[in-house]
Structure formats: structure tokens, C-alpha cells
């Protein structure tokens, strides 16, 4: 039996030892991945909020620009 085979056999306890290690690292990895995806979701929500804020700011600016254009037109119309 090669060294590697011997290592994986764990003196006949291979199934026990390796399944214990597998469960452990799968559970820990799930924790890491879940935490990461929760952070990404939160980040995306913040990005959405930001773009919404920008849009409403642009609309406000457009509206006030339109209003000022209208008012100058009115002033010009009144003068003529």
C-alpha cells in the first residue's frame, strides 16, 4: 500500500475521519459564502438607492431649468 493510500485509509477509520472533516469544512464554507452574499445584496441595494437619488436629483434640476426657460419666455413675451 502506498503512503498516500495509507494516509487516506487512516488505519481503517478513514470513513469516520474524512466524513467528520468534510462536514466541518462544508458547514464553515457555507457560513463564509452566506456572509459574502448577504454583503453583496446589501451593497447592491445601496447602489440602487444611489442611482434612484441621482435620477430624482436630475429630474429636479431639469424641472427647475424648464421653469426658468418658461419664465424667461414669459418675460420676453410680456416685453414684446
Amino acid at each position, binding site marked *: 500500500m502506498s503512503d498516500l493510500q495509507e*494516509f487516506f485509509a*487512516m*488505519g*481503517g*477509520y478513514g470513513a*469516520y*475521519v474524512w*466524513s*467528520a*472533516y468534510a*462536514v*466541518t469544512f462544508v*458547514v*464553515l464554507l*457555507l*457560513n*463564509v459564502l*452566506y*456572509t*459574502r452574499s*448577504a*454583503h453583496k445584496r*446589501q*451593497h447592491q*441595494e*445601496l*447602489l440602487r*438607492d*444611489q442611482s434612484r*437619488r441621482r435620477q430624482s436629483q436630475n429630474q429636479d434640476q431639469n424641472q427647475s431649468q424648464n421653469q426658468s426657460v418658461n419664465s424667461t419666455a414669459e418675460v420676453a413675451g410680456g416685453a414684446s
Partner: protein
Amino acid sequence: MFKWIHKFGSPPFVYRLCRALGPWMGWSCLALICVGLYLGLVQAPADYEQGESYRIIYIHVPAAWMSMFVYMVMAIASFVFLVWKLKLADLVASASAPIGASFTFIALVTGSIWGKPMWGTWWVWDARLTSELLLLFLYLGYIALRGAIETPTMAARAAAILAVIGVVNIPVIHYSVEWWNTLHQPASIAKFDKPSIHISMLIPLLLMVLAFQLLYAWNLMAKLRTGILQREKRARWVADLVEAGRV
């Protein structure tokens, strides 16, 4: 001094601290796991009584220790939240619950897998195993309680009270092998004057304990960041962070 303590109540400061320390925790945790597993699984000799099966100790004992350590952090943070109404303390407690439950689950499962070849049974209702199972239910109860109550402040308070009451279970777990006659073997390394474990087995075990501690710290910091962003999403400094792409 007070100024220094006050900083830890300031969300932007804690956020930046977690962001700065997080990657270090993660990478050193990974390195320690590699070294610890190499020393534990390859270098350390087999146990004269239990043969190779004892190697489950390198995940079982660190997980069991962490299951209690994380609960203590959760209970203390909950106490701080109840007394001083510190919102960050509630975040620490709620962020600790899932990883604490995971460590408890790992301790129970790996113990069960170890018990089968050594004791001839997957499970016995003895003091150590039963109190550890109760710990898992405390964690799950904490998580369920938070999810069940709709008002966030009410949920936080109720869960914090549960966490503080549940702390009586911790000494029961710790002393169960001394108070009752159990199948579970007594502690191998609690006796620091003369540990009943050889140095070549002790070092990988301590490395794995440290690795699990770092994993918890890393996970906690990442969750604190997410929680702070969620609570402070309307704050100016969060908008600045998003703007700068430094979330």
C-alpha cells in the same frame, strides 16, 4: 480613554476597523488551518489507544470550544445591549448566532462520528452530549425568536433576554464531565500544569483553535459591516462610501 471607548460606539469607525482587519483575519485563518491540518493529520503520531480515529480531535475540540466561546460573546453583547441600549452590541450578538450554531452543530456531528467507532454508538443521552445539544437549541431558538417578532426592537430585546438566561448552560457543559459520570472523556488540555496530551498533538490542536477563533472574528467583522450598512443606509457617510466605491 473615554474618547477611545466612545469610538467603538461609532458606526463609521467600527465599519472602517472591520474593513481594515477582515482580510488579515481571513488569510491568517486559512494559513493556520493549512499548517494545523498538516501537523495534525500528517505529522502527529497515532494515539496508542484510539489509533488514527483520534484525529477527529483537531476539529471536534476547537468546534466545541468555539460553540461555548461564541455563546459567551453573544450573551455578554446581549447584556450590554439590554443595559446600555448599544445597537452595535445587538449587531454583535445577532451576527454571532449563526456561526455559533454552526460550531455547535460541528461539535455534535464530529463527536457522534468519533463516538461510533470508539464507544460503539452514535449518541448517548449523557450530560455532556445533552447539554451541548441544548446549546444548539438555544442558538436556534435565538435565531427563530428574532425572525418571529416583527418589530425589530422588540425582537432584539426578546432574543437578548433569551441569550442572557441561556448562559447558565455554559458551566453545565464545561463541568458536565466532572459533575456526572459520563461516557465522554475528560478534558485533554484544560490542565495546563500537566496536559495529558503529547506536545506533537497539542501544537496542531492549539493552531486549529486559533484558526477557528480567527474564522469567527473574520465572519463577525464581515457581518458587522453588512449590518452597519443596513442600519445606516440613509447616513451621509454611507452615501459617500458608495460614491467612492469603498463599500
